C-alpha cells in the first residue's frame, strides 16, 4: 500500500520464502483504506487497515502481510510498527519509521530492507500463533524502537523456530 518499490518487494518475497519454506506471492497494490486516516494525528489506524486487508485477501491465501509506507498508530498508542491478528490471517507492517530518514539520518536502503524483513517475519510469526519472545535477539522480541529492531537477528530463536515449524507444516515446500 502506498509507494513500495517493486525491487524491495521481490527481495522480500525471496527472503520470506527462504526463511519460512513457504510459497510466497506478491499481490497487487492495494489503495490505502480511506477510513483509516486519523486526521488530527496525520497517521493511519493499523486496526482499520487490517480489517480492509482481510476483506481483500484472496481465498487461497494462507497468510497475508501488508506492507505500507504510511505511519501507523492505534488510538491508545503514539505509533505502531505493525499489527497482526494473533493466529489469524492478516498482518501489516509500516516502513515509515523503519527508514533512517525518519530519525534524521541519511537514507539507507540496506538497513531499511533488513528492518522490513525482521518486522515482516515478526508479524507473520503472530499470524502463525507466536507471541512475543523474551530473547532480545529473536525476531519475535517486541521492538518499540528501531534500536530494538536492529538488535534482533533476522531469524527466530530455537524455541520460536520449532513452534513455527510445527505450525507451518501443512504448507511447507
Amino acid at each position: 500500500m502506498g509507494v513500495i518499490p517493486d525491487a524491495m518487494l521481490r527481495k522480500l518475497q525471496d527472503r520470506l520464502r527462504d526463511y519460512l519454506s513457504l510459497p510466497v506471492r506478491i499481490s497487487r497494490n492495494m489503495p490505502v483504506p480511506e477510513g483509516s486516516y486519523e486526521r488530527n494525528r496525520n497517521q493511519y489506524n493499523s486496526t482499520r487497515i487490517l480489517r480492509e486487508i482481510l476483506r481483500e485477501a484472496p481465498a487461497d491465501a494462507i497468510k497475508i502481510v501488508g506492507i505500507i509506507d504510511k505511519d501507523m498508530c492505534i488510538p491508545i498508542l503514539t505509533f505502531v510498527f505493525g499489527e497482526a491478528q494473533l493466529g489469524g490471517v492478516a498482518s501489516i507492517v509500516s516502513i515509515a519509521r523503519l527508514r533512517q530518514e525518519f530519525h534524521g539520518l541519511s537514507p539507507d536502503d540496506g538497513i531499511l530492507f533488513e528492518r522490513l524483513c525482521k518486522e515482516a517475519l515478526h508479524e507473520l510469526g503472530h499470524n502463525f500463533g507466536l507471541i512475543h519472545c523474551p530473547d532480545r535477539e529473536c525476531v519475535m522480541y517486541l521492538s518499540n524502537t528501531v534500536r530494538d529492531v536492529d538488535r534482533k537477528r533476522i531469524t527466530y530463536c530455537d524455541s520460536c523456530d520449532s513452534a513455527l515449524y510445527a505450525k507451518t507444516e501443512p504448507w511447507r515446500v
Partner: protein
Amino acid sequence: MEPKVNILIVDDEEIVRESLASWLEEDGYEVKVAENAARALERLPEKEWNLAMVDLKMPGMDGIELMDEIRKIKPETIVIIMTAYATVDTAVQAMKKGAYDYIVKPFNPEDLSLTIRKIIEHQKLLKENIYLRKELKKQYRLHDMVSKNHKMIEIFELVKTVAKSNSTVLVQGESGTGKELLSRAIHMESPRKDEPFVTVSCASLTESLLESELFGYEKGAFTGADQARSGKIELAKDGTLFLDEIGDISLKLQMDLLRVLEEKEFRRVGGTQLIPVNSRIIAATNRDLTKAIEEGKFREDLYYRLNVISVLLPPLRERKEDVPLLVEHFLERFNIEMGKNVEGVAESAMRMLMDYSWPGNARELRNMIERAMVVTKGRMILDADLSLPQTPGVPLSNNRGKSLSEMEKEHIRRVLLDNRWNIIRSAQVLGIDRVTLYNKIRKYELKKEPVLNS
C-alpha cells in the same frame, strides 16, 4: 508454564478495544473487553483479573466510579485509567483515589509495555508478600523528586544503587531538569547523609575567587587574605561536594581539579600542607561537555574522571506525563507554604500546561504554579491564572522546519521583551538562572530593541 495474565479492557469505542486487545494479545496476555461499566461488572466474576484498563469518560458509569466498584469486588485487580489530554486532572484525582496509574492517550508503546510488565511483576510479589498499594507508588518518588517516566524511574533506581558507592557522578541535563535535586537525593540515599552537602556554583565566580572558594587559602596568600580560610572541599568533610555548572570552569581550574580527583589531596592557596579529600564528588552541568571537549574548552581527562557514573536527565517536553504529577506535587507544597487550599487545575488550564514545551523544564513549571497560586481567586487554577508565554496566532505548524535553537531564541526574545529586559524577572519566567540567561543572550546575540512608544 507461567499462568496466563488476564487483562480486561473497558472502553466505549470499539476501535480502541479491538486495537488495544490485539496489541496486548501479541504480547501473550489473555485479553477480554467490555463496552461499558455495566458489562465490565458482569464480566468481573469470570476470572481473576490481573489488570483492568478503564477509559475515564464513558456514557453511564464513568471510569472512576467503575474503579471504585472493581476495588470493592476484586481488590487485587489493578486499575489503570485511560484518558485524553483534557481530562488529565481528573486522572490525577483517580490516582489519589487508588488507581494504580493513568495513561494519557496516545501513549508511548515502550512506556506501556514497561508499565504493564512492572504491574505484573509487582503483583507476583504482592502474592508472596503483602505489599501496600502505596509501596507501588513509591517508585515514583525519590526524596523531593517525583516522576512516572520510565527513564526517570530508571535513574531513581540507579541512584539508589550508586549512592552506596564513592564513585564520582556527572549529572547532565537542561536547565531546570532537577540536576541539583537529584544530586541532593544521591547524598541523602548515601551513608554520608548526616555529613554536609556543600555546593560550589562554578559559573558565578571568577577564576581566582572560585579557586579560593574551592581550596581555601592561607593567611597572606594574596592581598586581602588577612586570615586563613578553609575552602569548600574541606568544608564538605566526609559528606558530598557538589560542583554545579562544572562546564563553566576555566582550563586552569580544570587542571587543578583533575589533580585533586587523581591524588585525593590538595593544598590551600598559598599553603604547603597537603590536605586529604574525603568527600564524594558530584558534578552537574547543562552544557554539552562532549562538544566542549571538541572545541577544546573542556579537558577530556577530567571528563572521564567525573563521568564514572553518568546521569542524563531528560527534558520535561520528553516526559509530558510528568506535568500533571509535578503540578500535583507543587500544589501540595505551595498549599502548605502559602497556607492556601487550592485543589487543582481546571481541565482547560491543564491542557495548556500539557501543550506547552517547557524550555525551563520543571523549574519553569514550579514558578508558573507558584505564581498562579498567588493570583488565583478560587480553589481551582484557571487558564487566566497561568502566565504562559503568549505565542498568539502562531500555530504549531508555522514552527515546522525551525530548529529547536531557533525556537528557543525566539522564545527568549519574547520573554525579554515582555519583561522589558529585566534579567531577573525574565530568568524567573524562563525558569533558568541569570547566568544561563546571560549566556543565552550572548549565544543568540540578542539585543535590547528600542520600544516604539505611541
